[in-house]
């Protein structure tokens, strides 16, 4: 058994010593209490719904979310809008469909099965509208950035007056959490920018937290199911391990040898 503990401590050392976190430049990100972290972590439903509102009213004018469908908004483990609400949300978007029997493309109100409507037709159009910078697709954005949710949360609140030794081109802004500190996106949030239906005060901090929670869900829509199954699986494995340990002791008691 002693050997086993040694073994697992070595495993942990190996993993820790190879962790990529060393490779990233160390910046202290802003911290907040994420409800989805930890063994039983779940999304805060109200925060997800507010986060969707921030996304759709603010971010969606430039950032696409091409891997999400409107039906996802009503699925368990997500913002869990009612089906009627999700249908209404979908119907508020114009979707290009077709060709019809005349060979023409046409627009119709969105359906649950439609993907989120994209703000631009293609990457080139997005770049042209944003001074050459492409606003990245947000579907898996939190997983595509080293600092994850903490990074996005900090970045949204990281806009500052540039220090005097930093010169900024037109359309470039200073953000203390951005890699290289220069960002092509103007500060997207300001206090009271959206009006929350549930009366929550829409401070920059609150909106940052809500929209980041929403982005975590969009990147990991099955996070809650994963945590729930993980807990059950690990408890099951631990119980089975204990039973097998005693069986092993019993079997090996027949021979003069240690296990």
């Amino acid at each position, binding site marked *: 058994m002693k050997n086993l503990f040694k*073994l697992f401590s070595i495993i942990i050392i190996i*993993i820790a010593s190879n962790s990529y976190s060393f490779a990233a430049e160390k910046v202290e990100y802003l911290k907040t209490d994420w409800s989805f972290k930890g063994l039983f972590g779940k999304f805060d439903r109200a925060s997800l719904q507010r986060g969707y509102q921030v996304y759709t009213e603010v971010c969606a004018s430039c950032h696409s979310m091409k*891997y999400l469908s409107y039906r996802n908004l009503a699925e368990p483990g997500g913002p869990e809008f009612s089906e009627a609400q999700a249908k209404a949300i979908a119907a508020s978007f114009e979707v290009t469909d077709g060709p019809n029997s005349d060979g023409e493309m046409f627009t119709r109100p969105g359906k649950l099965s439609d993907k989120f409507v994209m703000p631009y037709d293609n990457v080139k159009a997005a770049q042209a509208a944003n001074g050459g910078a492409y606003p990245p697709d947000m579907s898996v954005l939190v997983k595509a950035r080293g600092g994850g949710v903490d990074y996005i949360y900090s970045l949204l609140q990281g806009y500052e007056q540039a220090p005097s030794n930093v010169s900024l081109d037109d359309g470039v802004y200073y953000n203390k959490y951005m890699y290289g500190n220069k960002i092509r996106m103007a500060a997207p949030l300001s206090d009271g920018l959206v009006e929350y239906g549930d009366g929550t005060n829409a401070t920059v901090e609150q909106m940052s937290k809500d929209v980041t929670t929403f982005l975590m869900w969009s990147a990991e829509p099955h996070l809650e199911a994963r945590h729930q199954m993980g807990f059950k*699986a690990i408890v099951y494995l631990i119980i089975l391990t204990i039973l*097998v340990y005693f*069986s092993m002791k019993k079997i090996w008691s027949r021979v003069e040898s240690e296990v």
Partner: protein
Amino acid sequence: MSEHDYRPKSKVGQWFNDRLPLLTLANHLTDYPTPKNLNYWWTFGGILTFCLITQIVTGLTLAMHYIAHADMAFESVEHIMRDVNYGWLIRYIHANGASMFFLAVYIHIFRSLFYGSYKSPREIIWILGIIIYLLMMAAAFMGYVLPWGQMSFWGATVITNLFSAIPLVGEGIVTWLWGGYSVDNPTLTRFFTLHYLIPFLILGLVVLHIWALHVPGNNNPVGIDIKKPSKDTVPFHPYIVIKDGFALLMFMIVFAFFVFYAPNILGHADNYIEANPMVTPAHIVPEWYLLPFYAILRSVPDKLLGVVAMLSAILILAVLPWLDTSKIRSAVFRPLYRQFYWILVADVLILGYVGAMPAEGLYLLIARVATAYYFLHFLVILPVLGFKEKTLPVPLSITEPVLAGSPNLAAARNKESKLE
């Protein structure tokens, strides 16, 4: 040998076994005499078999939903993660399973290094193992390309470009590997095909690896030859089966922790950005299990020599049984080797660490020293140690793993006589 005397009890069994001796094989596997003093470092063979089967089963399932096309691969992975039932579970098991596989194989290899399991008469087992390890690296590398993220694309570009270091034909070989003039759709489809093929090659080699093992039998922590079957051995079933099973469950707990609670911690964030040939990531790093070799590659200023050094670092292991001149297998009885062994472990960990760092300044210097030491260990220290080292007295059997004259010996003998 008792196994040759085996005869199934039933008439049908006998009829079948006379024509295809599968029952004899099953009997051999269950009765296989195993040294009874094997410690938990010996459980990783079973764990590795589990890893291989897990990768094959989850991989087959993923292949049913994955689309090997440069324009659709990334999206199809997101489709698996979002819309395929338990697709997220299967993919996270497969992705983390690769890391777990390498974790286990490194422990397995370093166990062999410590206890001298590669020495006569087990050289063929060892060499088969090295071939398996090489194939694992190829499979893992190609698997990492399939999601077609930024690290997939640029990792593939960097690694395939290594072949351009070959004089005269290098450039031609790279074009041939790519199926074009850059990493693109033809590269992806052939990597997918090979990624699908290699695990089955590994499976075949594993069968040979185990077959070759069953000729001399297992080495053991004392490192001496044992008579089998004898009081030094236990039958594989149930003794080793239950012990391997226990260790496997412990391993699965660690595995499950990664899959359910930190599924992306071992991967690189950039691989969630779709491949873009126009944008190079700031740091291109391979997966953690390839980092020591990546560090060796980058520590040599010349490209061709760097590739040679990296390949030699792996291939040198294949001739290890002849580089190690010591007659004593287990490091338990080799006080000097034991120290150099741990220095080598530290050296490889350091190489892994600097492999993840930018190749500049102090990191580059450390990488160079560590690379030099790696080769020094195998090419100088090991051959010389065999002649110079004063080894400790080795017991005659594993039931007497204590030195003659020690009071423990009498106690051990007492216990034995009681058993008999």
